[in-house]
């Protein structure tokens, strides 16, 4: 699940990058110069349009095939098996009923709010600390070993700790989301600042920028693409951790919907919950990809 959500947007992103790169216009003669950077990334319009369209079609074949498999494969099993793996239309029906009754929205909203709040806090804190660590070497050297310890402590392992300290309510759930989303943002931000092309810094210095101006006008914008990579990773891990936390102890949320349906033997409802989680992940990811595309359109190296 997590691999498909990260792979897919990367694909669509390169497609749009190439299409924006070949805007025909003035000086197309100059642009045909084979020496120009990024040559080969931008094939002709006819070669570009077809694969993008065909790729989408191919992708929908796979989805359709999966649904058909889900619909008919249970028939091969025993009736008992069909209870545990209901046919797709039964799940879809259950999903619809949950939607109409308003239950689904209630759980979805609970999960969505927790992940957004936690994710926002983690992103703000991760970017702020990441910028400091990336810019001040001494701070990096001081904090790095400690951060490595925290980073390598699985967030879910800390769930009992958070529950003990912060109770079973919203606070522990938001905290674990913050914890899980913080480190990808932090580490990518620090890496982004550290790996800014030294040439750009030298150029900035020769333009007479002081350290503060160098940081805000050169280093910060140059690290935006790397920071966004961290933000996208944080988005998927926030949802991952949240669902697990909701399964362990909660009274609402998609994770709770899944476990409580399972406990009440409402198997189609359980699958409906799983589908909704996929949907939430897709929404969050595509929103982040769209945002990333807006702020780092110039970047051709990613």
């Amino acid at each position, binding site marked *: 699940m997590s691999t498909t959500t990260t792979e897919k947007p990367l694909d669509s992103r390169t497609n749009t990058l190439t299409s924006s790169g070949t805007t025909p216009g003035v000086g197309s003669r100059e642009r045909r110069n084979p020496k120009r950077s990024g040559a080969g990334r931008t094939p002709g319009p006819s070669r570009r349009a077809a694969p993008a369209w065909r790729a989408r079609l191919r992708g929908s074949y796979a989805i359709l095939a999966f649904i058909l498999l889900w619909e008919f494969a249970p028939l091969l099993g025993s009736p008992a098996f069909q209870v545990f793996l209901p046919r797709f239309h039964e799940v879809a029906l259950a999903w619809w009923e949950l939607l109409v009754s308003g239950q689904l929205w209630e759980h979805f909203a609970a999960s969505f709010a927790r992940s957004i709040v936690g994710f926002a806090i983690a992103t703000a804190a991760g970017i702020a600390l990441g910028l400091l660590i990336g810019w001040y070497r001494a701070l990096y050297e001081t904090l790095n070993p400690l951060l490595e310890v925290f980073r390598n402590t699985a967030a879910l392992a800390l769930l009992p700790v958070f529950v003990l300290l912060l109770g079973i309510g919203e606070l522990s759930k938001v905290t674990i989301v913050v914890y899980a989303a913080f480190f990808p943002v932090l580490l990518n931000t620090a890496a982004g600042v550290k790996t800014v092309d030294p*040439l750009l810094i030298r150029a900035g210095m020769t333009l007479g920028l002081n350290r503060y101006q160098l940081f805000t006008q050169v280093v910060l914008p140059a690290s935006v693409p790397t920071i966004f990579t961290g933000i996208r990773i944080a988005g998927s891990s926030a949802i991952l951790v949240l669902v697990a936390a909701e399964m362990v102890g909660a009274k609402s949320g998609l994770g709770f919907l899944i476990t409580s349906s399972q406990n009440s033997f409402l198997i189609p409802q359980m699958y409906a919950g799983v589908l909704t989680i996929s949907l939430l992940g897709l929404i969050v990811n595509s929103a982040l990809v769209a945002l990333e595309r807006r702020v780092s359109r110039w970047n051709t190296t990613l």
Partner: protein
Amino acid sequence: MTSAKIRVSDVNKIFEVPGSRRVPGHLATAVEGVDFDVHDGEFVTMVGPSGSGKTTILDLVAGLTTPTSGSILVDGTPINGPGRDRGVVFQQYALLPWKSTLDNIVFALKAAGRGRHRAERRRLAREYLELVGLKDYANRYPHQLSGGMKQRVAIARSLSYQPEILLMDEPFGALDAQTRELLQSELLRLWKSTGTTVLFITHSVEEAVYLGQRVVVLEARPGRVKAVVDVDRPEPPAGTDPRSTPEFITHRRRVWELLHGRDHLAEAPEDPDAHHVPATHDLSIAGPTGDAHRLERNPS
């Protein structure tokens, strides 16, 4: 010497090479006893093999690094870090990739405090884009431009804040031969119209002789000034290739021989580099034949 715009005297630069677990760290002398000056409004080129500290010298004059010993004066005053009196053009363009062509120049103007408000800076930036022939590319981003165009933008950016000195670090090194020649003559045109003092680094003998009024020839390990060659070449008649006049060829050969360890202009017995046979031969033809010219342009 008081008339010197840039005065580099007895400059040494020693780097500390950090060691690893197996190899102990050591000191490396990048340049040693470097001594030369550049007069006001002059175009000086600097040519040397790799390891001769060309870029080190340029960084020192730009103020990006400080010399271990010796002094660098600009207008008689020791330099203190980078300054807007010295514009730098790098080989790899160093344009901000997230800014359009126009905004890259506006950025420099703003940093330099030129132009009272945004509209005025944009107008000035357009003028400089026009100066380098790119006024139709104001809204392009660097990744949408060819190497030659990017370097033009970089040159426009450096000229925009009107530095008295332009320091250029192999600016045309990454360009193809045709674009390179085009930009060389454009640079000469800009230099003549702005009167800027230029210190230009290159590894190409031909480029050094074509552009420079004087050529500083460096030797390697450690980097030292081997000789300074005056290039006095009469303006060739219109329509002739300036690179095939007898004067050009003589200077070119002189610099080449200095670089390759032959200090005298006396007839070299056998030129080991096959490419240079036609160049020597060319002296006798001394005509702008296309063939000789073509051979000329492939020095190594």
